[in-house]
């Protein structure tokens, strides 16, 4: 298990909620990116999700799409990610989020090895379903690099148990129908609100009691995080809210303030695991 998975598991055992924050590599210069990471660590964030841009990110809403466009326009390359990762890893445990084509183009298993050797603990590929794990072949077993699977409100009970069995490090539970942030095509459905995940979370923990579950997509307030924890999740992932400020070239202090407010949502609640 990667360091991130281990930290999340320990926090779950202690009944502490966790918060992962997402930033897109290359969407701002590395110095600013690292300033944010340091501020997030000081604010009490558990781990960082580092996005790597893909030209056609089908699971992303407008904010992360724009971040990818900005990062690619700045000429962001795989080698830039590998340069950034060790510096991020000095501050916080790291999960890399990108799309399958990027990983395959950099050699599949070879790319995973590179991520691991540069400090990544986990990789999240939203277009890699359970059935696609074999595409990463024998290299799946890169020691210390977890391949995190996602589950969604559309996932049925049986499949949810399979996802719980096969995910590594933690389970990424998508909390709504839609893309990241509040996106979902030009006409977001009225149904894209966060759903009650209590039953899903119960089923996953019945299958694998020690597995941390983090909820994400559209998280904006400390109250959203508190609500996930009350439903039995072990934490939340926040991306678009922060990346939107970064896209608008906000100061690090502004992101810092947002994260400090979000961390309030982790304050101990009566419902432990």
């Amino acid at each position, binding site marked *: 298990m990667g360091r991130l998975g281990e930290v999340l598991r320990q926090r779950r055992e202690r009944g502490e909620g966790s918060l992962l924050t997402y930033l897109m590599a290359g969407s701002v210069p590395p110095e600013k990116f690292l300033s944010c990471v340091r501020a997030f660590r000081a604010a009490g964030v558990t781990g960082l999700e580092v996005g790597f841009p893909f030209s056609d990110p089908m699971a992303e*809403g407008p904010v992360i799409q724009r971040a990818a466009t900005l990062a690619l326009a700045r000429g962001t390359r795989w080698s830039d990610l590998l340069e950034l990762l060790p510096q991020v890893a000095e501050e916080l445990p790291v999960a890399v989020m990108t799309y399958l084509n990027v990983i395959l183009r950099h050699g599949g298993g070879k790319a995973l090895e590179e991520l691991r050797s540069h400090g990544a603990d986990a990789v999240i590929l939203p277009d890699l379903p359970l059935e696609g794990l074999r595409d990463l072949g024998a290299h799946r077993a890169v020691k210390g690099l977890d391949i995190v699977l996602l589950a969604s409100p559309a996932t049925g009970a049986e499949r949810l148990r399979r996802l719980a069995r096969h995910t590594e490090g933690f389970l990424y539970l998508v909390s709504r129908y839609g893309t990241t942030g509040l996106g979902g*095509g030009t006409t977001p459905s009225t149904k894209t609100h966060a759903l009650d995940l209590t039953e899903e979370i119960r089923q996953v923990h019945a299958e694998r009691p020690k597995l941390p579950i983090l909820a994400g997509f559209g998280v904006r307030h400390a109250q959203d995080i508190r609500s996930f924890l009350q439903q039995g999740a072990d934490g939340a992932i926040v991306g678009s809210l922060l990346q939107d400020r970064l896209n608008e070239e906000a100061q690090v202090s502004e992101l810092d303030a947002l994260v400090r407010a979000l961390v309030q949502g982790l304050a101990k609640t009566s419902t432990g695991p």
Partner: protein
Amino acid sequence: MPEWYGPYGGSYVPETLVPALKELELVWKSARRDPEFRSRFQDLARDWGGRPTPLYFAERLTREVGGAEIYLKREDLVHGGAHKLNNALGQGLLALRLGKRRLIAETGAGQHGVATAMIGAKLGLSTEVYMGAADMERQKPNVLRMRLLGATVRPVTQGQQTLKEAINEALRDWIANVQDTHYLLGSAVGPHPFPSLVADFQSVIGRELRRQSRARWGRDPDLVLACVGGGSNAIGTFHPLLRGPARLVGVEARGSGEPSGWGAASLVRGSVGVLHGMRTYLLQDEEGQILPTQSVSAGLDYAGVGPEHAWLKDSGRVEYTSATDREALEAFHRLARTEGILPALEPSHALAVALQRATTLPRDQHVVVTLSGRGDKDLAEVERFGPPR
């Protein structure tokens, strides 16, 4: 229905879409065994859609080219002006069976958007079509047609503002609205079961063509050509002929033809990767980012291709080649002036290669080109390029 074509195909989608894709496959499997569904489909295809389409001997063109006999499979005569209705009709009926009340679609040239708008109107389903803003500009007549048919056209302003981005947006809409919406994908691309589903609905082209050619000259054609963007008219043409003797040629768009440019020829110039839920040939850079494409024809202007074509290329059963913007335009003018038919710019690419090949073949051979659509939508583009040389 196959999910894999050799190493190509698959279903690389966010988890939210997995149940909907499985449900679509199950519903199609039951529908195609259901006599009631089949008879409704066939009645509509005939009385509303105008099937079967003729296999037409282009006699003057043949004489002018001087070689093998050239025939056109007239999909331009299908209701709406293109082969796209074959699939839209089938999937529209499946949407009803799925209990979905809303259709979404992507469109490049606008023909699939028009076909979806037509079936949406016919079945009383709300219809929204995603179309790249650049394509809306160059295929204006189809934008107007979709609106008149009651569909909402949603401009896509990301990236190159063409077909690839329209598919991205339709997929994102589907992720948000999958509970009440069917994504009526128009080409033989995307995650399983779409490539095989679309091939099933389009194979009527090849079945009719085989029957017509056997009735006419007693055997399969010698050479059959179709244009390939995502590849739906080509797969529909080729499928029933794969086990026969016909030589099959798919023609991609090479754009302006400059050596530095890729055009949109993903099979001819691309490499293997994963896009839009499928493993296939893509135009991509060494970093795995999808490259911009360029073609005069919006319907062929796409960086990927259906996975079955990828496999037919590797297996050698189908030959894939390309034609430039200029070659397609010359073929367009030639057909207009010899046969009184304005073809769409997409099949003009296939026609261009057919004319080159026919001159080299003996007179007793039969060449068939699938004329996948009519050219009314392209008049402004054709005019922009000026008169024929």
